[in-house]
């Protein structure tokens, strides 16, 4: 990882699990990563890979029945310290952009009223004119007219609502924005629009963490990419490095699938509990599995930023 750039979110051997009746279901296991400041950082993985749980942990939204291990540092504040966690301290520093923007707005309030609340919660004692000016400034960054302010959330289209959500996230003046599947409900045109807007957030001094399953979208928007599988980080690195030279077989598979090159099914059906058995998380699907895969490989760095968890690399 780029060490010249100070990390704003740091995870050290972070594990997050959910209490079930019998034991703990680990959704995120031994994840270490560092998100550089003012970068766009993507967490890519399939459903159930733990990427949303990781995003929830960074934005401080873990439900009370979660179990945590390891450390998570957000904005130089220790948020998760083994089994203790205190999310109150980062309230306001991290803001989310939700997956479904229409549920992110109170249906009984006009957009303008919600916007005023957001702005007022950050800056006190604003006059009416200043308030209006601030709001229109944020609206113009997402290319929306001021007419939006008089509408109710149900009157917005999906793309408009998502842009309103981005503008509100900006108005909250956070240090980190976590966008959980920001484009999964949008069509291709809006996807690129929202992607470019998220890219534009960096110039406000905001670090953007995008959680997505769409590796092509990630490759166009992000600076850094983390591929997760089965709750573990299998590959990290700058976007160019990872796409030019994907080292983990899962990353290779993801890129192939995104480019519609997949023609064969290379997996045997596995059930969720097998993820948490011993050995490499990907061994059930891996085309190259071999003897050492009975042990989970550690994350090895092949370059300064590029790391991969596979025995085939650097052995």
């Amino acid at each position, binding site marked *: 990882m780029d060490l010249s750039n100070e990390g704003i979110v740091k995870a050290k051997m972070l594990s997050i699990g959910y209490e079930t009746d019998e034991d703990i279901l680990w959704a995120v296991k031994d994840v270490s990563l560092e998100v550089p400041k003012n970068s766009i950082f993507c967490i890519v993985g399939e459903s159930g890979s733990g990427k949303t749980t990781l995003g929830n942990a960074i934005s401080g*939204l873990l439900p009370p029945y979660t179990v945590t291990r390891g450390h998570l540092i957000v904005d130089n504040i220790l948020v998760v310290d083994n089994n203790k966690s205190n999310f109150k301290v980062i*309230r306001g520093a991290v803001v*989310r952009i939700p997956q479904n923007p229409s549920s992110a707005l*109170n249906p009984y*309030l006009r957009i303008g009223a919600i916007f005023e*609340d957001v702005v007022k*919660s950050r800056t006190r004692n604003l006059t009416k004119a200043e308030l209006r000016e601030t709001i229109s400034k944020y609206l113009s960054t997402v290319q929306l007219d001021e007419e939006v302010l008089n509408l109710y959330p149900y009157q917005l289209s999906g793309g408009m609502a998502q842009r309103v959500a981005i503008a509100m996230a900006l108005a909250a003046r956070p240090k980190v924005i976590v966008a959980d599947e920001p484009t999964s409900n949008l069509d291709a045109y809006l996807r690129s629009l929202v992607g470019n807007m998220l890219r534009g957030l960096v110039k406000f001094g905001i670090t953007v963490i995008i959680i997505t399953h769409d590796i092509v979208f990630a490759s166009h928007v992000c600076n850094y990419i983390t591929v997760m599988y089965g709750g573990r980080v299998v590959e990290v690195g700058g976007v160019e490095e990872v796409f030019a030279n994907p080292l983990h077989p899962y990353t290779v598979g993801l890129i192939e699938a995104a480019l519609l090159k997949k023609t064969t099914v290379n997996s045997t059906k596995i059930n969720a509990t097998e993820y948490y058995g011993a050995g490499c998380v990907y061994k059930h699907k891996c085309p190259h599995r071999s003897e050492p895969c009975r042990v989970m490989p550690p994350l090895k760095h092949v370059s300064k930023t590029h790391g991969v968890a596979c025995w085939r690399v650097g052995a």
Partner: protein
Amino acid sequence: MNRQVTSMLSKLLRKSLKFRLGFAITLAMVLMGIIGLVTPPYRDEGWGLVTPGTLAKQGLPPCLPLSCPTPLHPFGTDEMGRDLLSRILVGAHIALIQVSSVLLLSLFIGIFLGILAGYSNRVIEKLLSYLTELFMIVPSFIVAAAFVVIFGRGMLTVVMALVLTWWPWYARTAYTIVRGLRELDFIVLCEVMGGSKAYIIFRHLLPNTLSTILVQAIGDSGSIVIEMASINFLIGSASLQSIDMPEWGMIMGYGLRYIRTFWWIVIYPGIFLLLLALGLILMGDGLSEYMSPVLRRRWGTWI
């Protein structure tokens, strides 16, 4: 918000026959209450005063198409000779005050505790849920009977008894709605942005809860009238002395023992009670049909 309510009301009045009918009846009842408060024909008799003058005209029959003993008492007089029309007119505002106070108090307690239960930690949530269920299973008649024994009979007793058994339904509705709402993104986002609990409750949870519960409450108000009249009816029929307070249910309950001779004492307050309940129920039905398009479509063919 205010403009929305007015526009919805006018739309309802234009579209829904049921609502129009119910609204008209309720409005007429409110007018009756005002007339009864301001200028009833016989104010003292209306409030239950018995004088030698009234005793002289005991049990005058009402004005019917073929027999009208005296046009001064169109609904006749009761067993103490008091003008029944005045008693009904004075009783109108009592009925309205009872219904609205039960409704408002139980709405207030119910919504407050419901939101608190839905938006608190597990201990408070469980505690309040048990409390709600406890009060839900207590029958209002038993509470009313106990209260009458403890506090004596009167309007306050009945209102208290009904509020105590009525709020759990609103509390449970509010709790269910808030439980669903707190998982939604806009509440979660408010929490992430560091909004205070009071802000989230009053700005976001309350308006979202209120619309549903208010419709439910207006629909319920008809049954409050019936329930209240039933309790008052029992109090009235158990009473040994003549009832002074012109409460419709009590007049009916006490008048029941004279039904073979002075039938009008029971029938006329009963008609007005029925009308009030009918008006409120029609209004609630119209409102809930307006809110739910499925119901509107189902009944739309014949209403």
